[in-house]
């Protein structure tokens, strides 16, 4: 049994509950125990670093410090925004002894910088990929457009994950379960992000271009690893359709859901019924 710390963040307990469900279901299938960080708090998301630098570091630092306190050496952070904030904090505090001392003072906890932060792709690469082939019962024989968004791969100096301009890791992973990734142009284009709340029409335009290109290239599904991307591409489909002046019904799946389907995990366990655009696979 492999034990990894787990930081769900707010999205995975709310609007993208199905992402959490599919991550957990997949981990169960591979005998990985996810242990939630007790008493975890908000990562600060977009708001904190626009308001106050210390706050934007203190919030993630408290999460990491709690993980350390609970003896965790590795945590998985499925939400791309949380992953980004936690990684930036780790990077910043590791590079600045004084600042780290200051932040420790604020959170009233020592932070040593020992816990390793994994996004879902990295966790899958490390613990799942090698055993994947033996467990496939229903190859996901569909054309997919893998959408990485912005936060999963940037800034490269800090995350050191995948190719910034033309990432490949999700494509490579999905090939292992029989999917055929399409070569498309919008892998890292902006989906509109937080405008989802304030100005959904902008999301309609930006995400609309993304969805349209995926469909034009023959994709049958879009695959993501970020709750924000998912919300914009899936939940904001009416705004997208009104921008495109047509109805597009391409479903948007989390990478963990696609892997789950290939392993024969039930649709309910993967939370497929929770999407706005129905998933018919």
């Amino acid at each position, binding site marked *: 049994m492999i034990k990894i710390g787990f930081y769900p963040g707010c999205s995975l307990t709310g609007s993208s509950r199905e992402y959490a469900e599919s991550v957990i279901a997949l981990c169960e299938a591979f005998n990985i125990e996810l242990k939630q960080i007790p008493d975890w708090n908000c990562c600060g998301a977009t708001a904190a670093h626009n308001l106050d630098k210390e706050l934007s570091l203190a919030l993630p630092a408290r999460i990491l410090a709690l993980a350390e306190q609970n003896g965790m050496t590795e945590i998985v952070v499925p939400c791309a925004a949380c992953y980004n904030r936690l990684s930036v904090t780790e990077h910043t505090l590791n590079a600045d002894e004084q600042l780290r001392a200051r932040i420790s003072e604020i959170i009233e906890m020592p932070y040593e910088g020992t816990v390793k932060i994994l996004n879902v792709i990295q966790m899958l690469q490390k613990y799942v990929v090698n055993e994947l082939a033996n467990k496939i019962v229903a190859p996901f024989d569909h054309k997919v457009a893998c959408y990485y968004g912005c936060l999963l791969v940037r800034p*490269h*100096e800090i995350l050191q994950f995948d*190719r910034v*301009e*033309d990432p490949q890791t999700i494509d490579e992973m999905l090939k292992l379960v029989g999917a055929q990734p399409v*070569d*498309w*142009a*919008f892998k890292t*284009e902006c989906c509109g992000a937080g405008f989802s709340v304030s100005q959904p029409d902008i999301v309609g335009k930006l995400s609309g271009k993304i969805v349209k*290109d995926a469909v*034009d290239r023959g994709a049958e599904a879009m695959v993501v690893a970020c709750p924000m991307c998912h919300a914009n591409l899936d939940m904001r489909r009416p705004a997208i359709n009104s921008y495109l002046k047509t109805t597009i019904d391409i479903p948007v799946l989390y990478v963990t859901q696609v892997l789950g389907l290939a392993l024969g995990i039930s649709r309910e366990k993967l939370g497929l019924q929770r999407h706005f655009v129905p998933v018919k696979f």
Partner: protein
Amino acid sequence: MSRIGVFVCHCGENISATVDVEKVAQAAAGFDDVVHSVDYKYMCSDPGQTLIKQAIKEHNLTGVVVAACSPRMHEPTFRKACAEAGLNGYMCEMTNLREHCSWVHDRTEETTEKAIDLVRMLVEKVKNNKPLEPILVPITKTALVIGGGIAGIQTSLDIANCGHKVILVEKEPSIGGHMSQLSETFPTLDCSQCILTPRMVEVAQHPNIELITYAELDSLEGYIGNFKAKIRKKAKSVDHSVCTGCGDCWGKCPSKKIPSEFNAGLGSRTAIYVPFPQAVPNKPVIDKSNCNYYQKGKCKICEKFCKPGAIRFDQEDEIVEAEVGAVVVTTGFDVVKPEFFPEYGYGKYKDVITGLQFERLASASGPTLGEIRRPSDEKVPEKVVFIACAGSRDPAKGINYCSKICCMYTAKHAMLYQHKVHTGKSFVFYMDIRAAGKNYDEFVRRAIEEDKVNYIRGRVSTVYEKDGKLIVKGADTLMNGEPIEIEADMVVLASAGISNPGSEELAQKLHVSYDRYKFFAEAHPKLKPVETNTAGIFLAGACQAPKDIPETVGMASGAASKVAALFSQPELKREPLIAVVNRQMPPVFSSCVGCFLCETACPYNAIGREEIKDRNGNVIKTLARVNEGLCQGCGTCVAFCRTKSIDIQGFSNEQMYSEVMALLND
């Protein structure tokens, strides 16, 4: 008993405005063994020097301290003056009252005190100076030029025309380098090959130049004036003394689909080939990695059709040795590879090409015979986007520098395209236009104003293919960052110029420094642009940093003149400020115990070994021995020596300690 003279300079007001120079001279007059001390307005002037010369004679001085500017500036001046008055030049020392004192402090008493201390230190040092003589080194008057592009060609011709021998080594089958690949050259639009090929032929025919193509430097040992080079001649598999260059072989070679390096991958060549029709030498080599016979053991068609019988499948690499007195590195540059631009789709989309590939499209000797036809379907592109600074000035990608030539060649490319495709539209995305050079800015203006090239100030974020078009997404930063999308038929990247893949290895073989981008480092960015920090090794062209043809040629002639100046002397005179291993009477011979830590520490490979033998020839002791030609006097070995057996002449431990003690005992 020493008799020291002190000469304090005002340097106009440079020193005297801050330091009380009279007080310094008075104080120095009171130091032990100082028999004469004066100040003067300009010590470096003729009257100033005369002052020193007269004092040496009148006071019978054994040592001189000039308290003035940096020794880098005037040490040779004052040493010469002393020598003219009959005092060994190395008995003269300078202390720097200007850069080390007056320029960096305010006028206070402490400043003058510091100046007095600086003089005191040097007075103590000079008492321990010993007369030294310059070292004489013989010179082999043959130059080795590595790289046969325009830089190497120009360097070789210039040295050879001075009457010296040159060995020109080129790794490709032909000389010519990147310049031979270019279509037309800015800012005059004259044909690159037309101006280059006569020089290539001149190289081949010059009686003083030995041209060795398809060869690389294997190793270089020795020192200025006396290098020993080993050159690896790669097996050509063709005997060039028999071959007539008729072309029957490459006409019949069945491996025809090999991407042509000369055409930057846009055309193909055969396995036995000459890179291009004007190649020098115009005789083929066999590319073993693509030859059916070498790879599969069957074929030999070329041998069958070769009338003179020049094919030699059993030829092997050969190492030739050469003695040379100077080396000029002219290995040129490269451009970034496809994986550098995932966002521009270079390597993924056939119609996204580099500037070098565009040169081949525009060249009369290129794959399309000079017609602008895009690689994917050979159609004439109606809309072409040129992206300047593709990779250059991009810290996120690790290239912070400007590649320097791209602004000009991009203007040229857009212009050539407009001249050849009258109905076409061209766009240039740029950051800044850097057109500094004679007639350069006028050239860019001509592209914009006469040839109607659309210049857009902004960067391109991505290029992707859609419905047979390349969608170029960028922004116009002069229009408030307005997003722009252009549906182009072809995209040309002004790819960053980078150092050659083998440059680091070569720099290590030559023991010359290189910068963080692996370009060879010049000895001084302003005053020694063609020298390296290793004596006798020079640089020219884009191996030092990206540069255009005029600059390369100028630098090549500069390097050649340095070599010619070196060769014009009967023997080489070097400063004797080098390390020496002490010697004593037998039976000790030296305090050196032969641990050879110094050998490991020396950055210049200047430490060798010397065996002391008895009269029967038996080795009694092995000592470190400093090679006078190689030693640069850095002193690293002195710091490493456990038995204090090595010293730097002119900077001996004794001299240094007396300087320090002068301060402490004050």
